[in-house]
């Protein structure tokens, strides 16, 4: 049975949902072990055990929070050399991408990104990867000897408790000064109101069809009325209309709401990659040929400056 390691991440005093999703996946196909580096909640080890971790390599040192990438990569590389796991799973997050890319170069082993399904084979692993915004599906593998590195796509596996508890292996933090080169001096959280984009069951997103940042309030108003979260395409984030934290897409957040309402969004690959898993998609666009309509369960070809205010009015009336 293969041993799969999961690199755990903590946000806002909690293990991230993606950590538990990856852990569930790992425990289903092999022996799951977790790397828990840096400050973590008191019940983290118990939670990890309940979701299938047989073992937790724990190092609570603050060095991992204060200095990016290098201390974690160093400790991971030395643990990998010692224990030779078959795979290490990272979340497709800012930190996950930094660690996977650094380690793949250091260990000369490559890495798979955007893994949405994983199975074992006689010679290793086979991953399912949505490509080109989900319009293709790849089956891919890594052929390097030794440990395989993979970045896992959020919301691809359902986190499930299996019961059980994890043995803890306390490991020492690396101490070399050389590793303390990327120094975090300040962390700023920009809190939004309402449900978070990743957790919302309804997401209303706006794209370039809004024509101007000042019109984004239409998206925000509808999201608020429906008890959902507002989102955005990379184009309007790049244009500075809304903050990065609202971006849905390959670079931004992956969402899987019950209802996704795309307003003035053409359906670029970058955007589809982040919302294709939505249960029901509604699209409003002036261009009948916009790719978003191919993925829409219900679409209105029309001017969103007429359709959206009418929709907002209707929702108000019927509530």
């Amino acid at each position, binding site marked *: 049975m293969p041993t799969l390691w999961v690199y755990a991440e903590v946000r806002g005093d909690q293990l991230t949902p993606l950590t538990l999703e990856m852990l569930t996946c790992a425990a289903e196909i092999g022996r799951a072990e977790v790397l828990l580096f840096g400050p973590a909640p008191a019940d983290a080890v118990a939670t990890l055990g309940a979701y299938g971790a047989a073992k937790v390599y724990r190092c609570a040192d603050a060095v991992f929070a204060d200095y*990016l*990438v290098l201390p974690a990569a160093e400790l991971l590389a030395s643990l990998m050399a010692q224990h030779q796991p078959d795979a290490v799973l990272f979340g497709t997050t*800012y930190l996950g991408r*930094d660690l996977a*890319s*650094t380690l*793949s*170069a*250091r260990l000369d082993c*490559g*890495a*798979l*990104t955007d893994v949405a399904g994983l199975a074992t084979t006689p010679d290793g692993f086979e991953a399912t990867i949505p*490509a*080109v915004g*989900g319009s293709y*599906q*790849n*089956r*891919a593998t*890594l052929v390097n000897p030794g440990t395989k590195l993979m970045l896992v796509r959020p919301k691809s596996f359902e986190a499930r408790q299996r019961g059980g508890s994890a043995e803890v292996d306390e490991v020492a933090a690396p101490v070399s000064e050389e590793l303390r*080169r*990327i*120094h*975090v*001096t300040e*962390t*700023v*959280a920009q*809190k939004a109101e309402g449900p978070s984009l990743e957790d919302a069951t309804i997401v209303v997103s706006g794209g370039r069809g809004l024509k101007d940042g000042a019109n984004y309030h239409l998206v925000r108003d509808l999201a608020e009325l*429906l008890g959902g979260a507002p989102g955005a395409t*990379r184009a309007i*984030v790049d244009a500075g209309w809304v903050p*990065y934290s609202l971006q849905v897409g390959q*670079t931004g957040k992956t969402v899987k709401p019950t*209802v996704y309402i795309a307003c003035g969004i053409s359906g670029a*690959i*970058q955007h589809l*990659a982040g919302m294709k898993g939505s249960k029901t998609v*509604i699209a*409003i666009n002036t261009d*009948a040929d916009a*790719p978003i309509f191919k*993925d829409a*369960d*219900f*679409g*209105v*070809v*029309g*001017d969103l400056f*007429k*359709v*959206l*205010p*009418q*929709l907002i009015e*209707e*929702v108000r009336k*019927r509530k």
Partner: protein
Amino acid sequence: MNIAVCAKSVPTSSVVITIDPDTQRVVRDGVSHELDPAAECALEVGLQLVEQHGGSVTVISMGKASAADDIRKALAMGAERAIHICDDALAGSDTLATAKALAAAIKKESFDLVICTTEATDTYSGLVPGQVAELLGFAPLTFAREIALEGRTATIHRQTEDGYQVVHAELPALVTVMSGINEPRYPSLKGIMGAKRKEVLRYTAADLGLPATEVGAAGARERVLEIAPAPSRAQGRIVTDEGDGGVLIADFLASLKVI
């Protein structure tokens, strides 16, 4: 300040990217290409830093011979010179082989700072910059929304899931910038004329000391076993707004019991 900016030629944004089922690669022949708009943001950062601190920007690109036009655009925008890594042996390279080629070209000279986009606008894997940083031993400063230099210290605002972090490191460093953090300049007429006379250094894999077994499809650790069109959604109901579009969507939401 000696700055290298990595830039890639990608299919233009209006092109629907397709994958050749036989080669399992993105179809590039007969498809119009442009300088990656995200890489233009990285270049703009480099040009601004040079304006403030002196020095020069070298643009480095790995791609087919046809990428020359896009490299010329980077020169017209203000890069001093270019390095074009171009060799059929590199076709089919995975992320690590690409990173090895870029790092080998960067290592031939003495750069203080390498700037990349967080991910190219065609494949979006986002692994190459981190790999290049590691191969060079440069400090990776990733997902930057803002960059400042003071002496030999680079400080960035690094994007996080719910805000940002202020992060700094000593040079040499590799910075990846989020696309859209600036408005890349248009090449001026003078820039376009001047670009024709600027140096474009060409390297093959052999020039970079990369054995054929380590690059291209032969050296790839990442193997695609099969690629197939994803099952598409059942065709939904698409209507043209005749003054009742909003009402129809409300009806649809009601049928889903959302309202």
